[in-house]
């Protein structure tokens, strides 16, 4: 095909989002497979510092879209800046990481061009020279092979971890740097972002915990939390949870693990009644040893567990507490 692949970089006020490297790696692999030049677009106000990060990376051209109105991210600014570039360059594919920012503008950008956006892919496969993208459906319980229809450009985003950022290939010389003309009408930007903040009450720092017992919706009700608490106590562990538990305020939000909560890497992570949706997994997959107790043998959490117990947590956990106590007493 050889029409070029465009990767869109992401940063917050000059700090590059590391998932940009994952998207670039996907771009490198897809360009190797399909041919054509590889371009990276960066949007912002003053991009000189960011440019350096790309100076040794293997890509053909670094496209700089600089404008006063791109100083902070807005979906309109991003869409209006990228649209003429995409129309002019006619890439065959636009690749992004599936970040919260991409969720916010990519569907708009693709729709503005009347194109499809295959979001949150975990990989791709080539069939007769055409990519077939693989996505999770039903919260990771199944996969789907998806093919794009209609004319390029095709918009694709990849899930965090689908490609390895540390495998981005370097080259000398690095990319050509091309400033791209951006004209934006202030009145077209209707969303007005204000300050970014964290909730003040961050009482626990789970990143320091050596052992974590995490509960999910399988715990059924707040009344059952003492059971998990007891297991945590015997193990000297911290208690954590998936999002629905914190949504219900059964545990405070600072105990939430996942994309919108904390990212932890303890030496032992025990997941009780957690299905293993990607937004949870990204927060704990770096744990040294993962134990999953879940009554559904197909639960995606088993895909990343070192030890799995298919069973009812209300039967297994009491037995586990008992056994741990016995072992403790032996010493």
């Amino acid at each position: 095909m050889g029409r070029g692949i465009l990767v869109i970089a992401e940063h917050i006020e000059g700090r590059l989002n590391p998932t940009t490297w994952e998207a670039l790696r996907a771009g490198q692999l897809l360009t190797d497979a399909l041919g054509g030049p590889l371009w990276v677009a960066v949007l912002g106000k003053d991009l000189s510092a960011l440019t350096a990060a790309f100076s040794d990376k293997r890509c053909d051209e670094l496209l700089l879209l600089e404008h006063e109105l791109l100083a902070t991210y807005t979906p309109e600014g991003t869409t209006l800046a990228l649209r003429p570039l995409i129309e002019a360059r006619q890439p065959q594919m636009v690749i992004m990481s599936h970040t919260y920012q991409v969720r916010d503008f990519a569907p708009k950008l693709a729709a503005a061009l009347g194109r499809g956006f295959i979001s949150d892919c975990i990989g791709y496969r080539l069939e007769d020279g055409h990519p077939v993208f693989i996505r999770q459906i039903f919260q990771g319980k199944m996969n789907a092979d998806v093919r794009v229809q209609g004319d390029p450009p095709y918009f694709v985003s990849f899930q965090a971890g689908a490609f390895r950022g540390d495998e981005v290939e370097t080259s000398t010389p690095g990319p050509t740097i091309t400033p791209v003309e951006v004209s934006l009408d202030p009145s077209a930007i209707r969303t007005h972002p204000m300050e970014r903040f964290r909730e003040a009450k961050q009482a626990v720092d789970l990143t320091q915990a050596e052992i974590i017992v995490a509960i999910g919706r399988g715990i059924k009700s707040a009344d059952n939390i003492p059971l998990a608490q007891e297991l945590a106590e015997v193990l000297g562990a911290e208690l954590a949870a998936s999002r629905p538990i914190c949504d219900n305020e059964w545990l405070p939000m600072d105990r939430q693990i996942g994309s919108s909560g904390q990212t932890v890497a303890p030496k032992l992570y025990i997941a009780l009644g957690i299905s293993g949706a990607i937004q949870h997994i990204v927060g704990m997959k770096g744990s040294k040893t993962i134990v999953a107790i879940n009554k559904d043998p197909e639960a995606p959490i088993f895909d990343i567990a070192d030890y799995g117990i298919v069973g009812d947590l209300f039967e297994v956990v009491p037995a586990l507490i008992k056994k741990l106590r016995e072992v403790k007493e032996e010493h």
Partner: protein
Amino acid sequence: MNIIVCLKQVPSRESILRVNADGTWVDEQDLSWEINEPDVYALEEALRLKERFGGEVIICSVGPARVQQAIREAFAKGADRGIHLNDPAFERLDAYNTARVIAEAIKGESYDLILTGLQSDDFGFAQTGVILAELLGIPHTTIVMEIHILDGKVKVKRELEAGWFQWIELPLPAVLTIQSGINHPRYATLKGIMGAKKKPIRTLGRDDLHLGEALLNLQQVEKVYIPQKTKETQLLEGSPEEVAAQLVEKLKHEAKVI
């Protein structure tokens, strides 16, 4: 304050999913259905805004006859009327075409806000609301955790990654995609359930809408399947006592983490 809430009906969380005969989707025969979780939060948010500011909550749902159940459930909680988009041509549409159908169906409505869930539990596109805003030419913001109505505009708290948030202001009308946990959804009351039967649902099919071009998916699911496990997981088997003993043994002597 008139609010349109887009509700999707999805297989209930406890469903056992089986791939259908031709491998293109799940077998829908024996499934039970529920309202997509973030949409339940979107509905609750709409009902609370209506309680404060008055106006109507209008439910819009694309799907076969069974989605009337979801619409009635929303009525029982306090929604006022429904638009049911039902046509064989609407089956398993991608996000772009779902948004096209909804955009066309609500053209004659006057609304201040459109609320959708941030993502569906089945397809998980995380796109329909954003595309809807683009097709309607109105602003949007995503992953919303708090809503304040101001004069002619709305101020929302948007969730960012890793526990960060951001305040964003945008003019009305706007589309907001709602994240779970924004509120505590109510249960329907008996009185609500009784009243739900009388509330009107307008059913529209393809021929009732001016869709122009045919509804051709821009992304087509070719095959669905249970993913292959990529990691060697040691599955421990036996009675609760047996698996507990095995696990403690492994954690102590194999993984050496306790």
